[in-house]
Structures are given as structure tokens and as C-alpha cells.
């Protein structure tokens, strides 16, 4: 079954690039440009993996992560933080919050692809 990837980022350029990348690799992709949209999408989309920015307006990526982990249907989704927050403590916090991977922007497409493939192959 084709894996489903949810891309959450408020930067349109990044959303376009990531969508293109994921679709090229054969995944079904949905996007959201805010934390609220992302949480609303969980019910209808139920992603296998979420590429999640942290610094979103209003509801940030940490809150979305916590909401995913508490969601009855989506709680087992893999979460990859894709963020400009590059401090070690941000990474520690992100992984402690329940993320499966943490990639700092600007990212290499190959790194994102490898991480997605690795996490979805488990």
C-alpha cells in the first residue's frame, strides 16, 4: 500500500519542493501551512509520516507532535521535524517530544529522502 506523507510548513517554496520530492518517490502527499490545518488533516488523511516544521504561527510543531501522539488513529505516524531551530537542546527536545527524526534547514533532498525511506521501511 502506498504510504501517505503529510507536509506541514508555512513557507510555500518549501512545501512545493517537498511535495514534488515525495511524489517523485511514489508517496501520496497532503500539505498544510499551519498547525491548525495539520491537526484538522489528521482525521481525514491519517498520514504514515509527517514532515513537520516547528516554528509555525499560533500552534507550533511541538503541539502538533503532541497532538499526533495523542490521536487515536494517527499516533503511530512517523514524525520528522524539518526546522531552522538548530540548537542541540532543540533537537533533544524534539526527539523527547516524540519525533522520530530531526533535520535542520537548509536540508539536502537526499537526506530527507533517505530519512523518509528508512522510517517508512520499519
Amino acid at each position, binding site marked *: 500500500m502506498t504510504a501517505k506523507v503529510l507536509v506541514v510548513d508555512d513557507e510555500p517554496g518549501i512545501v512545493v519542493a517537498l511535495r514534488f520530492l515525495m511524489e517523485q518517490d511514489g508517496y501520496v502527499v497532503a500539505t498544510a501551512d499551519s498547525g491548525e490545518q495539520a491537526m484538522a488533516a489528521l482525521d481525514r488523511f491519517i498520514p504514515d509520516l509527517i514532515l513537520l516544521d516547528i516554528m509555525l504561527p499560533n500552534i507550533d510543531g511541538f*503541539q502538533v507532535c503532541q497532538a499526533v501522539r495523542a490521536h487515536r488513529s494517527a499516533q503511530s505516524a512517523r514524525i520528522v521535524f524539518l526546522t531552522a531551530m538548530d540548537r542541540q537542546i532543540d533537537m533533544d527536545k524534539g526527539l523527547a517530544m516524540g519525533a522520530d527524526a530531526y533535520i535542520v534547514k537548509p536540508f539536502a533532498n537526499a537526506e530527507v529522502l533517505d530519512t523518509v525511506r528508512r522510517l517508512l521501511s520499519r
Partner: protein
Amino acid sequence: MSLNRLFRWMAAGLLLLCLGILAGLAAVLRQGIDPAQAEVISSILHNHVWHFIATALALTLLVLIAIEAIWHYLINPVGQLIEETTLIQKANSSHRIRIGGNPDMQRLAGAINTLAESCQQSRDQVDDRICQAKAETEGEKNILAAIVAELPEGILICNAEGRILLYNPLAVTLLTGNPGQGGGEDRYIGLGRSVFGVIERHCIAYAIDTVSRQLENNSRDVVVPFAVQGGNGKLIRVEAVPVLDHHRRFSGLILLLNDISKDLEKDLDQNRRQRHQTRLLRDALAGIRAAIEAILAYPAMTDDQRRHFYRIIHEQVIKLGQTAAADSVADQHHWLARWPRLPMRFADLALTLTQWSREKLGVGLSPAGSITVDAWVQVENYSMLMTLVYLLKCLQEETGLSQFNYGFEGKTPLGTFDLVWPGPPVPVETLRRWADQALVVGEQQLELTPGQILAFHGSEFWSGGLADRSGHAFLRVLLPTATASPEGEVIRSPAILPQSRPEFYDFDLFNQPGQVPEVELRQLTELSYTVFDTETTGLDPQNDEIISIGAFRIVNLRLLRDEVFDQLVDPRRTVPASSTRFHGITSDMLIGKPPIETVLGRFHQFAVDTVLVGHNVAFDMRMLQMKEKASGSVFINPVLDTLLLSAVIHPAHGDHNMEALARLLGIRVVGRHTALGDALVTGEIFLKMIPLLAQKGITTLRQALAASRKTYYARLKY
């Protein structure tokens, strides 16, 4: 004319008179007798000439013995009485007269002693009352002195002539590089010393000129900043604030000193980084822009060319990403370095947190699970403790619990402090609300939010469920960890109020008259002195060497025990055992010490603009002179010798050695036959001598030098 001299003249006169009378009698008799009688007398004289000579000698001896006895029993005791009564009055009120002589003189001495005893008791009572009255004022002065000593800025105050009136230990460290003994190798700060010894004259002149112009223009801002090179190559920012008298005339400068070396280095470093970053940014953007514009402008370019431009864009973007990552780390370090943090044992932090939680919140805190026992954290103690207590308060309100466990793992660079409780974790949005709220615990409030305080520490906090899924949750706060002894931190000891008047300020010096070209015309009470002593390998200036120099300064009649010169010297030969028995210095103790050429240069600087004082100082000065050529240090200071001065003050006393003088003047001898110990005793002796010299009409340096030259001991040469 003194009594002794008068007696001598009278005795000589009397003797001559007797001889004159005898000669006259002989002449008269000779004229009144006839030749036959003269013949008989001549024959008698000739036959008994030796009897007559012996009788004459015996009579002369008897007369001299009588004169000596009169002098010893009547005249000398009077002179002694005068000297010792003056000593009691001027220098040593506990001294009591013990003289020989006739019983009446001894009874007079006894009466004077009784009077002295009674005067001393009265004086002691008055002194006690004065002391009590002054205690409060002194206490305030001492608090001021302690505050000045502990200021985080160096402070130095000088009068209009540049003489130092006040300084604190930090000023010494900043300007000389040596926190102890008032100075570094060739720079000294001390009361009465010239500020030009540590700050370039033209800088002070510039400050004075600028201040004068600002005052003339009635400017409100009269602070003049400038920078100078301090000790150990530091760059020191100096702010000069003028001191005006009540006529608004310039009377001195307050110099505030700060070490800006580190800050300057950091700012320069950041500036360099920013310029580098801007250059990289511009280069990368230029490359990207050129490539994109080429692609857009030439849609017909070949695929290879297009791919080449794409590669260029890709490479430049990667470079930008690397630059951004590096700058982010550097900025963090730069920013965190400014937040005041000190190392603290985690155990102490936990203890205080437990106490505060109990007292302020009624919340119990117990250690549980893994705790790194000997860990150190580096935090701003008060704000971090308040933050942790505040988070406990929030947890208490959120969970309804009053008992929490805690654990700590001292990982580097951030340790993990966990508060644990049974229940679900705290939602992220709740944590964010806590982070942004005002930090209020009971009646205590901080201006910063918990989020800001944690950010200033480079810290974070979050909540989650425990991995063992026991139904427990945690609130984790990251705490920066530290080693126990950080490098470069300034150790701040407690400020101890001095018992006696501290020696780093003397505002009396403000009003001292200016330097007179002729130092010899100045009053002894106004001059500054360097009291010194040397220890040597022997007593031969030609062949022996100096092995120790000890010195103190006297300024404004105060012996400054904090401004000390105490240096052992490598004589470049062995120290004879006979010499070691005297002063205790062995050859081993001198290994690695600087040679005399170096030490003399430093001593020369220490003693600049002072009168040199020593006991039997002719020997010490000869030793110094023998090394003038080799060291390049020529001591042209005026020199006073307490041995000679004692002979001036107490000519009747036979013993002018240091111990006898100290006993006479009521001074305790400590460290005898050490250079520093002897210098100290000499200094105290000298201070007692000044009023005694004044009693003899000797008040200026010239008078003291002239009187010294006339004593017998001045004939001693080395």
C-alpha cells in the same frame, strides 16, 4: 649652651684661675725675697724637685677626680633628667627615669616618675574617651573603605599634583598587574606616590585640559574617558572625573578604571565574524543571482549549460547554509557569555530548592532515581531557583499534588533536571503559557519571565511521559553544567571591615603644600620616607653581597604596613655559615631569586621621591653604591640615619643600638635581624624621633642632616 658644655668651660676656667693665682703668688714672692733667701729656696726646690712634682701631679689628679665626681653626681644626672623627661613627654609616656647621681637627684627622678605615672593614667582615660567618641566616625570610614576596596571598578584618586590619595586593590591589579604589595615589577601604586608612575603624564594632562575647558564652558558632563595600557598588557578604560574645591578650583581627579581587554576582544571578534559573514553572503547571493538571471535570460541555452548553472546555485545555497549554522553557534556563545552565571554544586541548588518549595509553597520535594551526586551547574543562582520554584508552583496548580520527586543527570553541556509525578504530562501549550507569564512566587517577583531566564541560560524545558510507562510524567529542565573551578573567574572574598584605619586612603594629603624645589627645606612632618634595611653575606662592602632588602614607606607620618618591599637576592656566591647564624638566610633560600641588578632597579622605583631612612645606614648605602654601575640605579635620595639622630637626641646615652633605642622608645622588636623586621622597627623608631627632634629645634630635613653630621658616629666610614 648645654649644661655639660657649661660645666666643662667652668671647670677649665677654674683650673686656669688656680694656676694663674699660683703663678702670680710665685712671681710676687720672688720679688719680695733677698738673694740669700732665694738661694735657700732654690736649693730646697732642687733637692726635693720630685717631691714637688709628685705633689703637683697628685693635686692635679685630685682636682680632676673632684671635677669628674661633680660632673657624674651633679651635672650629668641633670642632663639625663632633662633628656628622659623630654622622652616621657614626647615619645614614650611609659618610660621611667633610672639615673645614678646624688640622692637628691634620684629623689627628683622618683618625683618625675610619679608625675609621669599620674599623667599617663589621665592621658589613658582621656584617650579612651576620645577613642569611644571617634569609634563611630571611624566605623563609618571603615565601611566606606571596605566598600571602596570591593568595588567592581578600579578607583584611584589623586590631588592636583598627581599624588595618590586613595586607591583600591582592583586599581593596583589593573594598572600594575600585581594584586599584592601595591605594585608590579616596576610600577607602584601607594599613598603619596605619583600617579604618573602608572599612567602616562600626557594622558592625565589631556584629561585636565579637557576638564578645564568643559568647566569653563559650564558643561554638565565633565567626565573625560581615555584608554591606557595597564599591567600584563591589559587595555584599561579610564574615566577621569574632576574634584573641585569649594571655590570650584580644580583640586584633583577621580579615575575610574575598567579592564576592557576581554570585551574589546569579543567585540573585535564579532565584528570580524560579521564582516566575514557579509562577504560570504554577498558572494553566494551574487553567484545565485547570476546563475538564475542567466537561466531566465537565455532559455535557449544548452542542457549542459543549464545543469552547470543549477550546480552553481546548489553549491552557493549549501555554502549559505553552512555559514548560517556556524554563525548561529558563535552568536549563541557570544550572547550566553554575557549572562552572569557562577558554578554551583547541584546538591546545594537542590537543598535550597527543597527549602524554598516547602517554605513558599508547602510542596515537598524528594530525590528519586538517578542523581549525579557531585555535579556542578553553572547558573545565575537566584533567578534559576525562582524559576524552578515557579514551575513547581505551576505543577502544583496543574496537578493538585503537593509532593514531587526529582532526579538529575549531570550531562555536559546540559544536565537534565526532572520533576516527576504520577499523572499525564503537561500539554505544550500550557508549558508555553507558563514560560511567558510573569514570574511571581508569593510576594517575590522577577522582571523576567521563566522563558527568558531559561533562554538566557541556553536552557529549555518540556514535559513527557516516563519511558517505563508507569503512569508517571516528568517536567524536564535543562541546566548548564560546569567544572568546579572555572578559569578566568574573579574570586570575590568577603569584605572584612578593617579594625584600624586602612592604608589605602589619606585625604589629609589633599591639603599638603606643593613640592618645594628644595626638599631639604621641607618640614620633617611633611616628607615621605622609605625606611629600609639590608641583610648581607658579611660586613665588607668591597667583597660581600646584599641578600635581602626590606622596606616600608612612611607617608604623612603613617608607616604603611601594606606598602612593603621585601625581596631576597641571589648573591651569586654562597652565604657563609657565620652570616646565616645572624640573619637565618641560607644559600638554598636564594636559589632562583633575582640578582641585585634587577632588585635594585625595583627598589629604586619603590623609593622614588622619598627620603631614605635606616639604622647605621651608612653601611647599607655603601652596599647600594657598590652596585650602582652594574644596576644602573643611582640613589640620590637624601638619607637619614636613626643611629645618628639618636646621638643628636640622647647625647648622654652611651647605647644607640636598635634594641636599646626600641626599649627606650617603648617599641616592640619583632623579626630582628631580618631586613623587613629591622626596617619596621627602624620606621617606628624614626616616627618617635620626629617630635624629639622638634624639641631640639630640628624641624626640617636640612637641620636633621646638619645635626647628624656633627655627631661622633658620623665619622664612621665603610
